[in-house]
């Protein structure tokens, strides 16, 4: 088994390239399951996974839920609308309560950056970051890389352009880290208002012109644009954003002929992705959803199947 050193998955930086490859191998073996009639393995039987979502999310929550259920774990979903969060119970109290109820793993999505890490230092169970504020979304980066590897056959040496709102994107932050670790060269494409000025050790080239930015790229990853960015004047209008940064069949002419297009979803059609039908064979967007389940099974399995609780390895 490709065991992980870390008891939690909080950021991509928790992982080594070898561990990522191990996750991909494990995901591959689980993917075979989905073509069987009985899509379950007993790996996490008797364990409880709590999906604690403080932000609306259909895709990620469902993906984690299916992943945990295929591993035979008991799954509880808690979302802000139905929990005592609305009664003002503090975050820490909520998580401690969940732990006291016997959860072995908590998958947490939260609008504030740093919450999963903060929680992980205060509880004994495994903590998996399912997206925190603007900070990280490690399983998304893993499934993105896994999709690229499946479609391209390799990672090292590829050139990827990440297009859009880098500043507010946890998907971008996790991907920039993960891609650099795996030997991919990363470009960031977007208007200056949506790209952080201080990029420290991010090894990424910045482009403001889309065609120039994606030229010669093997992969173009469009990010979701939060529609409120226009009202906050990060961009003048959605129309102008779509005009300059929308991914369309004609724009993709600038990329490599076999370019792969990814998007973490949900897509604002007509804004960041235009006329997907026109580049259907280049789109990896549904693959991402499919491979996401395998990646999350692998992460849950590698963190939780060993029987060691979080504090043991911390």
């Amino acid at each position: 088994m490709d065991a992980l050193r870390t008891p939690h998955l909080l950021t991509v930086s928790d992982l080594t390239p070898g561990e990522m490859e191990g996750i991909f191998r494990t995901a591959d073996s689980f993917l075979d399951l989905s073509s069987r009639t009985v899509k379950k393995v007993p790996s996490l039987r008797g364990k409880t996974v709590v999906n604690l979502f403080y932000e609306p999310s259909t895709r990620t929550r469902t993906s984690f839920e299916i992943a945990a259920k295929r591993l035979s774990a008991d799954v509880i979903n808690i979302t802000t609308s139905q929990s005592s969060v609305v009664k003002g119970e503090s975050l820490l109290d909520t998580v401690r309560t969940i732990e006291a109820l016997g959860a072995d793993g908590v998958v947490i999505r939260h609008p504030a950056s740093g919450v999963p890490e903060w929680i992980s230092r205060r509880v004994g169970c495994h903590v998996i970051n399912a997206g925190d504020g603007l900070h990280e979304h490690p399983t998304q980066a893993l499934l993105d890389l896994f999709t690229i590897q499946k479609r391209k056959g390799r990672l090292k040496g590829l050139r990827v352009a990440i297009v859009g709102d880098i500043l507010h994107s946890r998907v971008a932050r996790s991907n920039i880290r993960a891609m650099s670790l795996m030997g991919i060269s990363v470009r960031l494409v977007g208007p200056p208002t949506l790209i952080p000025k201080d990029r420290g050790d991010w090894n990424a080239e910045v482009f403001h012109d889309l065609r120039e930015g994606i030229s010669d790229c093997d992969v173009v990853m469009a990010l979701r644009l939060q529609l409120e960015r226009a009202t906050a004047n990060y961009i003048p209008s959605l129309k102008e954003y779509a005009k300059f940064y929308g991914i369309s069949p004609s724009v993709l002419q600038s990329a490599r002929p076999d370019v792969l297009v990814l998007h973490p979803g949900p897509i604002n059609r007509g804004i960041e992705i235009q006329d997907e039908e026109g580049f259907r064979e280049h789109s990896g967007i549904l693959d991402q959803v499919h491979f996401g389940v395998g990646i999350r099974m692998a992460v849950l399995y590698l963190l939780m199947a060993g029987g060691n609780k979080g504090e043991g390895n911390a």
Partner: protein
Amino acid sequence: MPERSSDNTYFLKDVRLLDPSQGLDREGHLHIRDGKVAGIGDLEIPRSGKGPVIAGNGWVVAPGLVDVHAHFREPGFEYKETIATGSQSAVSGGFTSVCVMANTDPVNDHPGVTLDMIRKADDIGLCRVFPIGAVSVGLKGETLTEMGSLAQAGCVGFSDDGYPVRTSRLLKRALEYSAMFGKPVIDHCEDRDLSDGGVMNEGWVATELGLRGIPNASEEVIVSRDLEVLKTTNGHLHIAHLSTAGAVRLVREAKRRHLNVTAETCPHYFSLTDEAVRCHHADAKMNPPLRSEEDRLAIIEGLRDGTIDMIATDHAPHAPFEKEKEFDQAPFGIIGLETALSLGIVLVREGMLDLTSLLYLMSVRPARAFGLPRGEIREGGRADLVLFDPDGMWEAGIPSFLSRSRNSPFRGRKLPGRVMMTFVDGRKVFDRREGGS
């Protein structure tokens, strides 16, 4: 607890007498009697019967420290701090005079609140508490407070701290009006529009942690505004908690133009950078935020060349349950009264300042800038004194601070400089040997 007994005489024996206000730095003894400094230097120390003789071990005796910027939270937020716990925290850190900010509940925008604060502090009898009145009623940035009545009640300056003075026009009126009482208007310089919900310094650390950044310009825009407005008045502008290199440059330039401006910084701005947010989380969250190394060095340079007049603490207690939260949600502020002197001594050890300059920045200068008759050791003068061991090492906040709160990024850090005793009006209000951490 304060001593109010007939033991009103002390001899501090074999101490280093250090008073930057008069260039005093010598070995000797000091005699306190009836609240005053009765003698300095080569005194005859009585064998017995004339009050306790305290062996000074070569420790430093200096004017009691003066903090022009603290939050004692009373009235209204007694679960964070009270005048009593804040005073204990202050005297254990060597502070004998503390100016307390107006953002209480009710706001200190009325003489009744001011008088109540002073009365409580007097009853407690530890440090002197000098209230700072609000600039605007309810800190709302609309209506000027009755500054005259507040000054009569004992306010030593005016500030909407927590918020900047909201409009340029209000600032102009406040500076003009307060000038007739000779009291400073203290501004928390922040363009909140530019801060835009930021929670830490804008920079690489914020990028990486995915936290919203507060740019340096947020401070500098308002410092610029304030200085330009100041120029049109006869007022005294005091800039609170300077944190950026650009703001230091602006103040330096303004002083060259002889504007009536003073400025403070806080120990955390010369001790830490935004890197501290990575490990101390909300205990490293304050406003203005911890900045870059370049800013930190510029702050030190400002202290060295006199651009920054003084070190204040911005002691801002918050309860653990408030800080134990998502970083975004936790309130801004850290406590500072018990670590300020030690962090200053770290600068001395690093060769950035000499001890005399440090004490000047922490007692003489703030007292003078705020018109407080404090900050010197003279025969016949008020005996507000601190006795400290500059080499004594201690672990900050372990087992606990005397403040009611513990929100400090320095908790657990080994620091040099141990306050041994503090005297206010000749009374021993703190004695390390009698307990206290």
